[in-house]
Structures are given as structure tokens and as C-alpha cells.
């Protein structure tokens, strides 16, 4: 036994010596190559890395995939800065999971040394990384997180979409204009987006003279909504507002219509996935409305007309609002990089600092969903309109464009 132990320890010591020896050599060669690299770098073009943090798998993977289509397309058009430097995308999956989001964000910032991050898509996830964006001073642009708290109290997180108070108001105004003066709200207790949007709707709806009959809640991942449906049936509202996500909305609609409730249903941009709604709800998806960021049939700028044309050529379908907003946030970051990529901002930290400022001071930037002007104080675009869409016979139909 003793002999064995001795042998083993000898081997370990020898191994350890060998490894440390090797390491020293490696370190030396590394230092040399690093020196060479820095020498060549100053003459060559630089590569600026931008992290893309989106839910590519998980419950709302289809949102993330659609967004990525838009980002990839716009990146292929705008991958080079005027001074010759290139932009490289580093794509990371946040899985619509807070832990994965934070890990992915940290990895992008500290391992990949990105200059900016586009994403995360969902409000809950954007709130989860807010502190890390501040700590690492990384400019972060979320394309579609609508909860107002996402950009409040930080200099580094901005957005390129409207916020929930506006989205909720749009829905409330629509309902009241169509004389749907009593309503039930069904929200998802586990999502910051849903809670915030429900409150925004309730406030605007009550203010406009509407009567809230009941506020019900569900949980992410629920499949049985018969309890909620039974209560809706009992109060028989004229209007049902469902600021939840598409997977739950699909089954909710199916059970609601099976129970014979015929009142019009409206949701936020969280259910803006007609394909999934149709798949999960079948015919019950017909007639459901939602507020969204963009309609491919109404191109607001020359750039968006070009984007829609290119998108059709590449993917053979109309761009969704996700693709359009994905492209928007990229353009905002690209614009900031264009402004800041100067010899004065040689170090990554000063580049990031400059870009964060530039993003917040975006003015009248031509983008896909319109001209973007970001309010430097709130980090939210001003005057961003919303569209109301409706599913008719399995297809989306444009209903109305509402300006703030």
C-alpha cells in the first residue's frame, strides 16, 4: 500500500512539474504573439463584436428565431463601417430563462469582449441583466422589451420600441371606441411584461370610462384554463384583454371558444405569433386581435421598403414585427458604432462608453419600423406608433395604425 501511494504521489508531482514547465513556455510564446498582434493590429482593420442575446430555444423560441432572421439580414447589408472596420455578431441563446440569460450576458461581456449587446427580447430577461449592464458599462439595446422599468435608472440599457403604458392605452382606446365598455383582463402572474401591461390597460380603460368586471391570472406553462373560462362565462364581458404569451394564449382561446364565449379577445405583442396561435387554437384563433410594432404592408421609410424586399427575396415570406424590430436595434447599435469608432476610442471601455451615450442620443435615425429618436433620459423612442392586427381565416389582417 505504502509503495503504491509513493508511486502515485511521485507521478502526480512529476506531472505537476511537467505541466507548470509547459505553461511557462506557453506563456512566453503567448506574450510574444500578443506583442506581434498589437503591432499588426494598429495598421489593419479592427473587428467590433456585437453580442446578440435572444431566446433561440425555449417557450418563445419562434420570437427569437424571427428576430434573428431580421438581424442577420440587416447585418449582411450593414456589416462594414465607413472607416473599413467590420462588425461581427456573436449569437447567444438565452432560452427565455433568467439564469441562462444572465450567464449568456456575462459570457458575452467578459469572454467575448463585445462592444454592445442586442437583446434580450423579453422584459423579464432584460430586467435580469440590467444590473450587469450597469456594472460592466456595456451598452445594451433591447428591441422589444416593453416594460417601462427596463430602461429606467440605468444609462446603459435602451430600447427601440414603445412601452406598455402606450400599448395598454392603445388596446383600451380601441375597445372603448368600439363601445366594448366592460372587460375582463387575464394576465400571466409570472411575467413582468404581462403584469405591467395588464396594469397599463386597466388604468387607461378605467380612465376612459370602461368597467372592469374581473381581473384573472394564469401561470406560465399552464395548460388548463377552464377555471378562468368558467368565470369569464359567468360575468359575460363585452371584451377580453389577454396580455400573455402565445403558447398560453393558444390553449386559452381554444378552451374559451369551446365553452361558447364569443366576446372579442385582444392581446399585446406577446401573442404576435399567428402561426403558433393557429397551430394551438385551430379555428378558435380567428378573430383574435393584438397590438404590434410593425406591419409589412405599411413600409414607413425607404429603408424599410428595401428591407421588406430583401427579406422576401431571402426567406420567401413577409418579415414579422420581430424581424423588423430586430433590425431596428441593430441599426441603432450600428449607428452608434459608426459615430464612436474613432482613434480616440481605441480601448474597448472608451468605445463602450461612447456608444452608450450615442445610442441614448439617437436622433431621427432611418430604421425599419420608422424614424427613431431616443429620449436620452428614458432610453425609449419617442413617437413610436403601434398597429392593431387581427387574425382572419388564419391570416393576419391590418386593422389600424395608432400614433401616440
Amino acid at each position, binding site marked *: 500500500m505504502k509503495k503504491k501511494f509513493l508511486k502515485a504521489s511521485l507521478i502526480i508531482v512529476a506531472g505537476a512539474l511537467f505541466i507548470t514547465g509547459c505553461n511557462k513556455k506557453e506563456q512566453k510564446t503567448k506574450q510574444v504573439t500578443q506583442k506581434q498582434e498589437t503591432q499588426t493590429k494598429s495598421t489593419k482593420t479592427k473587428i467590433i463584436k456585437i453580442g446578440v442575446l435572444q431566446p433561440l430555444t425555449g417557450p418563445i423560441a419562434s420570437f427569437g428565431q424571427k428576430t434573428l432572421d431580421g438581424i442577420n439580414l440587416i447585418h449582411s447589408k450593414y456589416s462594414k463601417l465607413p472607416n473599413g472596420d467590420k462588425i461581427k455578431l456573436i449569437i447567444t441563446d438565452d432560452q427565455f430563462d433568467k439564469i441562462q440569460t444572465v450567464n449568456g450576458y456575462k459570457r458575452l461581456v467578459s469572454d467575448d469582449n463585445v462592444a454592445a449587446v442586442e437583446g434580450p427580447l423579453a422584459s423579464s430577461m432584460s430586467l435580469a441583466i440590467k444590473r450587469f449592464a450597469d456594472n460592466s458599462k456595456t451598452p445594451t439595446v433591447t428591441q422589444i422589451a416593453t416594460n417601462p422599468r427596463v430602461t429606467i435608472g440605468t444609462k446603459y440599457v435602451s430600447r427601440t420600441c414603445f412601452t406598455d403604458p402606450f400599448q395598454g392605452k392603445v388596446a383600451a382606446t380601441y375597445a372603448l371606441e368600439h363601445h366594448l365598455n366592460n372587460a375582463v383582463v387575464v394576465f400571466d*402572474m409570472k411575467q413582468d411584461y404581462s403584469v405591467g401591461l395588464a396594469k397599463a390597460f386597466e388604468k387607461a380603460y378605467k380612465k376612459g370610462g370602461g368597467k372592469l368586471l374581473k381581473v384573472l*391570472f394564469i401561470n406560465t*406553462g399552464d*395548460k388548463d384554463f377552464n*377555471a378562468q373560462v*368558467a368565470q369569464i362565462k359567468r360575468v359575460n364581458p363585452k371584451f377580453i384583454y389577454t396580455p400573455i404569451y402565445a*403558447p398560453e394564449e393558444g390553449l386559452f382561446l381554444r378552451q374559451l371558444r369551446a365553452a361558447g364565449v364569443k366576446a372579442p379577445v385582444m392581446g399585446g405583442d406577446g401573442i404576435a405569433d399567428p402561426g403558433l396561435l393557429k397551430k394551438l387554437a385551430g379555428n378558435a384563433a380567428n378573430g383574435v386581435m393584438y397590438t404590434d410594432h410593425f406591419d409589412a404592408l405599411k413600409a414607413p421609410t425607404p429603408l424599410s421598403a428595401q428591407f421588406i424586399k430583401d427579406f422576401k427575396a431571402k426567406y420567401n415570406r413577409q418579415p414579422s414585427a420581430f424581424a423588423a424590430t430586430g433590425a431596428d436595434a441593430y441599426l441603432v447599435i450600428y449607428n452608434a458604432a459608426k459615430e464612436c469608432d474613432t482613434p480616440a476610442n481605441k480601448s474597448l471601455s472608451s468605445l463602450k462608453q461612447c456608444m452608450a451615450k450615442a445610442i441614448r442620443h439617437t436622433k431621427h435615425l432611418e430604421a425599419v419600423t420608422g424614424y427613431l429618436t431616443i429620449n436620452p433620459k428614458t432610453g425609449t423612442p419617442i413617437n413610436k406608433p403601434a398597429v392593431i392586427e387581427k387574425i382572419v381565416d388564419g391570416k393576419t389582417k391590418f386593422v389600424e395604425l395608432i400614433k401616440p
Partner: protein
Amino acid sequence: MNTAFILQQIINGFSLGSMYALIAIGYTLVYGVLRLINFAHGDIMMVGTFLTFISLGILTGWKFEHISMAIFFTAVGISIILTAGVGILTHVIAYKPLLDKGAPKISILITAIGISFFLESLFNVIANQYLGGTYQAFYFPKFFSHIIHIGSLTIPVLTIITPILTILILLGLLFILYKTKIGIAIRALAFDIYTVQLMGANSNFIIGFVFALGSALAAIGGVSFAMAYPSIDPYMGMLIGLKAFAAAVVGGIGSVTGAVIGGFILGFVEVAIPGFLPELGGWKDAFAFILLIFVLLFKPTGIMGINFERQRF
């Protein structure tokens, strides 16, 4: 609150409960034999559901129109066999090497959680890569969604079939455990694995059989779930599995009859809370687990509480 309403809730409770029961049996069987809480069992149920969906897709050419009974049951049959295989595989690849090395139970428990994540991620990749999205609608013959009206009662065919199926399966399982040679072997193994090995019985085969049996039942449970709530996703096994585990514990883990009783109780609670106290509808998951704590306070070993020193299953 008339009798028809109460009767309706009881029928719904039976239906939901029997789905939990089918899955809970798997927890209890494996626990009885290996004293291992197989946390991947909920995901095995998900695998069974997805395999049924994929087989159905292949058999109907991904059209899912006019699914006949023959095609449906072929698909379910294929899925049951494959899921049983997946169950055996998880044991052979993940648990057996650890058991053979005499690893502590906690390591095997962690491995089970690892398997659970692996299966979820695997089917997430498959769903996103080949099926076109995480969420899929589940298709089945029209017959099952047919609704029978008796007075003011509305009873979907499915809500009658599942409980009957569950009771039949329970009786079959009890027959296997008490009247057949392999059943005697399983019970013997649960008593003392080393003595059984010394007697010359092939313990690996018996354990494999238990895993196959539990996984096959999980597949049936998963298919009944998918028919009741026709939206499937790779994460569906998490909460359902957790509740089925609660059912197994309430019933007394290690007891097959207990698992079925626990499943029914859980089903009743989940139906009764929203039915009678609709304001609390959103909290039904919380009530399911409050029940678990409540039962364990009074009967720490569950309703059919088993004393492992004396009896098995």
C-alpha cells in the same frame, strides 16, 4: 351547487387524477426497487408524448388529417415500446454504472436531474430543428373529443376512457407483481437486492423490466395528457412530473395502489379548487403541494404508507 355540477367535477377529477396516477406508478415502482427517486420520470413522459407525435407524423405524412384508430394505436404502440427502451437506456447509461460502484443515493439523484435536463434539451433541439418550433399541437382521432350528454352533464369520451384504463392497468400491474414469476422477483429485489443476486436471479434484467414498465405507463399517461390539453412542448414533463411525484408521496411511495389513490386525490383537489372556489383558480398548483404537506403532517409515510422492513408494493 347542484348535484350535476358536483358530479361533473368528480368526473373531471377522476380523469385528471388517472393521468397523474399513470405517471406516479413509475415513480413508485423505481423507488420500491432501487430506493431512487427518478426525477427524469416526468421527462420520460414527455418523451413518450413526443414519440407518439413523431410516429403519428411519419404514419400520416405530417398531415395529421383523418387519423384513424388503427394509425393512432399503432403510433401509441410504437411510442410505448420506444419509451420503454429510453427508460431502460437511462438506467443502463446513467444509473447502473453509479449503482455498481456503490455511489451514494444523492449522486444518483443528481444524475437523474441531469438526465431530466438532457432529455428536455434534446427534444427541444429536435422540436426546433425538425418539427418547426418548441410548441406543437397534438392530433388524435375525433372519437376521443366526442362529447356525451347525460342530462346536464357533458362528458368527453376521453374523461371516461382514461380512468377505466388506469384501473385496468392497476389491476394488471397487481397481477404481475403478485401472480407472476417476474413479479415475485421484483418484490424480492425490493426486499434485498444482494440476496436476490446470490440466489442466481438476474437482477439487471429485473431492474430493466421495472424501468421499462414505468416508462411505458408514463408514455400512456403522457398521451392522455396530450389529448386532454392538445399542446405539447419539451418542458411539459417538469410540472406534471413534479405533481405525479407528489401524488406518489401522498399515496405512500413504494405502493402501487397508493400511487393511484394519490393521483386521484391530486386530480380532485386540482379540479375542486377552481370548481368550487373559482377566485382561487390561479393558485391550483399551490394547493396541490399544500395538500402534500398536509397529508405528510398526519401520515408521514403517505396514505398507503409502506413499512419497507415488512412489505413491498
